[in-house]
């Protein structure tokens, strides 16, 4: 099996492991792309994830980063398609069926039941991100200031995030 095919296949099955947010799949992805196949180094993998986090779009575009390093632009495109296409089709099929089951009493129950689960998950996401992003007075202050400005609706979120980045850069000792 050629290396391009092996890489495409690897990202395809990794995409199936992304349940409840992409962060959960990171340890296994690192094992595959760094240790097993050596498509990128450990350092490149971490930086790639940071860049994917900074870039608009899903963090799982890290697949494109790895694919690019391993096999150039075709590698990046194949890795992206493997990461997103199969699971997208699956989600679409389920979402479509779901609309048809709507009238059923159990469907209404499931919908009401899923909202608090989503709420809890989102809060857990905030917790996880906060633990890695808030590590000193400056970052905690920026987070609180952002929450305050957004609660008052003084500016759109993206503008606030960019300004916070600039403030963080200016105040960094």
């Amino acid at each position, binding site marked *: 099996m050629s290396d391009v095919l092996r890489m495409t296949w690897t990202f395809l099955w990794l995409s199936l492991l992304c349940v409840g947010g992409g962060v959960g799949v990171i340890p296994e992805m690192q094992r595959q792309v760094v240790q097993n196949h050596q498509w990128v180094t450990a350092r490149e993998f971490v*930086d790639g994830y940071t860049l994917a986090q900074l870039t608009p*779009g899903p963090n799982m575009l890290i697949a494109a980063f790895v694919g690019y390093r391993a096999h150039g632009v075709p590698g990046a495109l194949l890795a992206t398609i493997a990461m997103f296409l199969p699971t997208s089709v699956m989600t679409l099929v389920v*979402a479509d069926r779901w609309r048809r089951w709507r009238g059923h009493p159990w469907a209404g*129950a499931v919908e009401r039941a*899923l909202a608090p689960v*989503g709420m809890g998950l989102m809060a857990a996401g905030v917790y996880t991100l906060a633990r890695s992003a808030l590590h000193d007075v400056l970052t905690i202050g920026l987070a609180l200031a952002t929450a305050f400005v957004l609660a008052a609706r003084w500016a759109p979120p993206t503008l606030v995030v960019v300004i916070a*980045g600039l403030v963080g850069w200016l105040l960094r000792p």
Partner: protein
Amino acid sequence: MIRPISLPQLTRVFTWTGILSIGGGRAAFFYEALVVRRRWLRTDEFLQDYTLAQLLPGPNVSNLAITLGHRLAGLPGATWALLAVIVPGLVVLLALATVYFGRGLTPTTVALMQGMAAAVVGLLLITSVRLMRPVLVNVRAIVIAVGTFAAVGPLHLNTALVLLVSAAVSVWLHRPGPRA
């Protein structure tokens, strides 16, 4: 439910929201754009789509684009929403990858990224607070939300497992019946 949202309109909003949602926590940006600012759907509808996107395998931003896009404009809506969140990021990331493998990250970039990451936590915080009011309407909803949070957050349990268990328990607690 039929909503008067045209495909170009949907594609434009998803593209912009996707591009503007930097630094992680992208669902919060979509909540802000679709529910708070445009009122295209209600908070509980958003949370249902969000949970479905998380329950199904796959990167959650693309899954969320599909469930929201499908709710707003059917199959074409889902397709365009998916492309709108992936293509711009792919182009930017490829450009960054080219620069990175040529030069590496500078300390300035790192400082900027840290400040933005902190601000995103603030955004997520305020979004969570806004979500709480319409969702945590009774004791069982609060118990499910707090339990899910504790298991996935501080306790670091396997997310897939927690989701399956808490979704099953929650569905059972919300089951249709004479008392409902």
